[in-house]
């Protein structure tokens, strides 16, 4: 049923239809509306059976999810920014133990300085944590990805984080087709844990592994995550079959078939980029867009295939690796190694700075003219901070 709904609400109602059994909730902007809505749905009985637990920190939130998931319950939580960092130890623990927890990350910048607005520094900082990372472009996709996430997590026995831009998506009211409970039930089977704490069959979970076997355990974790490269398109395809719309997958291309210049980005900025690309096309430019949906595991072959024919790639990303440069940009260069395409990295939208059509026109024009350097900070204006503040 199509509804005009706030993104957070759409996610909460969709998660509720996925029959989570334990929800751990700790509030942080801009995720609060999600956990508030889930709390309401649990209390009114629309979401049951479900244990909704108000925890004392994000570290506790992920820890409660770990305990619940290890006991065979479908577990969910949500966080952002500082909260994600506060639970980092538990993130690695969850992926290392192979627990299929699903978590929403309402992408927000990381302090210091404290900043509650959107960028990708939080989830990007955890790209090595062993969690699968999916990025939503719209609120529709954000809702849909949660359904796919539970399916994916439980199939592979790996945790999945669904990233949606804080405020820009979470607090935007737009139309969403919410899945019905019947549709979700047809697509998402009950959770059958691969390993579970059960007095009928006791097992030890979380043993200490020494030098003699640690490498192998970690290798197997990597191999398991790589299997998501096959699973994600399949799960997305089955989603399309059941729900009648395309959502998720590894990446999406827009007007790239004959493109000399391809723009690559993740998340909500893709909408604005597509508007700009249409305008540039009208001006005669051969330009297209690749929207990356899955960042971990990194779909290296698919990125190479989507970008390989381009003369240049402009990567627009909302985070960067201090002391090195772009993160997504580096991964794109990796995918294109050996190919002649130039890769221009553009860091944009940090701390919620709006990425405007005007700015995109400017930077893409520079890119098309090959006047962009290796790394550009979009709309950088040093007059905004006191001189010598470096």
């Amino acid at each position, binding site marked *: 049923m199509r509804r005009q709904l706030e993104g957070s609400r759409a996610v909460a109602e969709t998660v509720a239809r996925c029959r989570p059994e334990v929800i751990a909730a700790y509030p942080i902007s801009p995720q609060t509306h999600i956990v508030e809505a889930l709390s309401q749905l649990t209390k009114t009985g629309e979401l049951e059976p479900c244990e909704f637990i108000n*925890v*004392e*920190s994000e*570290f506790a939130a992920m820890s*409660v999810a770990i305990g619940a998931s290890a006991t065979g319950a479908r577990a969910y939580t949500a966080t952002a920014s500082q909260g994600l960092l506060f639970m980092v*130890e*538990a993130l690695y*623990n969850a992926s290392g133990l192979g627990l299929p927890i699903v978590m929403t990350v309402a992408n927000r910048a990381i302090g210091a300085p404290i900043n509650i607005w959107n960028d990708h520094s939080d989830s990007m900082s955890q790209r090595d944590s062993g969690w699968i990372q999916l990025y939503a472009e719209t609120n529709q996709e954000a809702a849909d990805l949660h359904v796919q996430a539970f399916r994916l997590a439980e199939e592979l026995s790996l945790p999945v984080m669904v990233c949606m831009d804080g405020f820009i998506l979470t607090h935007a009211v737009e139309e969403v087709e919410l899945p019905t409970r019947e549709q979700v039930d047809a697509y998402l089977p009950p959770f059958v844990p691969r390993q579970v704490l059960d007095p009928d069959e006791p097992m030890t979970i979380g043993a200490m*592994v020494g030098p003699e*076997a640690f490498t192998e355990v970690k290798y197997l974790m990597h191999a398991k995550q790589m299997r998501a490269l096959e699973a994600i398109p399949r799960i997305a395809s089955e989603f399309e079959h059941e729900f009648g719309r395309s959502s998720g997958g590894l990446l999406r291309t827009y007007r790239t078939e004959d493109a000399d210049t391809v723009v690559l980005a993740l998340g909500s900025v893709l909408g604005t980029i597509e508007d700009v690309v249409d305008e540039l096309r009208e001006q005669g430019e051969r330009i297209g867009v690749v929207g990356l949906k899955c960042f971990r595991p990194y779909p290296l072959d698919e990125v190479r295939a989507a970008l390989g024919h381009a003369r240049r790639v402009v990567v627009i990303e909302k985070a960067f690796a201090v002391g090195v440069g772009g993160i997504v940009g580096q991964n794109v260069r990796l995918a294109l190694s050996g190919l002649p395409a130039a890769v221009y990295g553009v860091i944009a939208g940090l701390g919620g700075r709006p990425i405007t059509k005007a700015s995109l026109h400017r930077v893409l024009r520079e890119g098309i003219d090959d006047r962009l350097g290796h790394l550009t900070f979009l709309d950088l204006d040093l007059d905004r901070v006191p001189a010598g503040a470096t």
Partner: protein
Amino acid sequence: MRQPIKYYQVGSFAVGNRLLDPDERAVQADPSRSNTLTSGHRACQGCGEALGARYVLDAAMRAAEGRLIAANATGCLEVFTTPYPESAWTLPWVHSLFGNAPAVATGVAAALKVKGRTDVRVIGQGGDGGTVDIGLGCLSGMFERGDDVLFVCYDNEAYMNTGVQRSGATPPAARTATTQAVGPEPGNVFGQGKSAPLIAMAHEIPYVATATIADLRDLEAKVERAMGLHGPRYLHVLVTCPLGWGCDASASIRIARLATQSGLFPVFEAEDGDVTDVTKIRRPVPVEDYLRPQKRFAHLFSPVRRDDVIAQVQSRADRNIQRFGLVD
């Protein structure tokens, strides 16, 4: 908690006294006990924690009729019981992180509740480091929410697994690797201390108790009592660490008894925030009797005898005796 028979005459060996009525025998004396923490683990000789955990878990398993899940913090107990690919645990057991055992236990309890498995009970456990320091936030959250978890702290008064560093439970004047016995004020500081049992009582949870490995039947009885209740319950068990405390491996139980008899470790029970029972000290001993046999207090006696520090320790013991009414 009144024990029907006192064992002071024969020491704790009487725990397995075959002359006792079967009903009054300890769980450990029963050949059909669970052996939840079974043999083959890698604990040190004389480890108080291994002893305490064995008693606690078997008593809890008996009370839960074998349907128990354990969440364990990082620490000695976790490390010496689960060297992959072996495990000494015969119950479902999960180790997550250092500071989150109470939260993991909460998660386990929530999952059991949502699945309607009300017959399965949950026990969380960890050392003093994982409970009173890094895990305190999660412990408090579990208490405050009223989660149905028995949490047991095995207190050996330092971060033993990592090499005997000071924790929030380290007693004043004790030598540890980070409170060395050097300088004008050797050993640990004389702070206000951090009493986890009192903190637990401040949360007014259904049951709080302290115990030691010196009175194992009492320890089992308290576990049984705790398991007969629901909601958050907390058990704080003093467990000797011969290596960290610098005493003989054979002296573990004896040292723990001296801790109680000196008044330094009060043994009591509390319900809903109020003390309901204390174990009286039958024959109080000066703290010096407790301090002397432990190398971690050796600097109080040699090269120079520190009467001032010993007196300070004594006054803490006296305060406990008075506060809890340990001596008639």
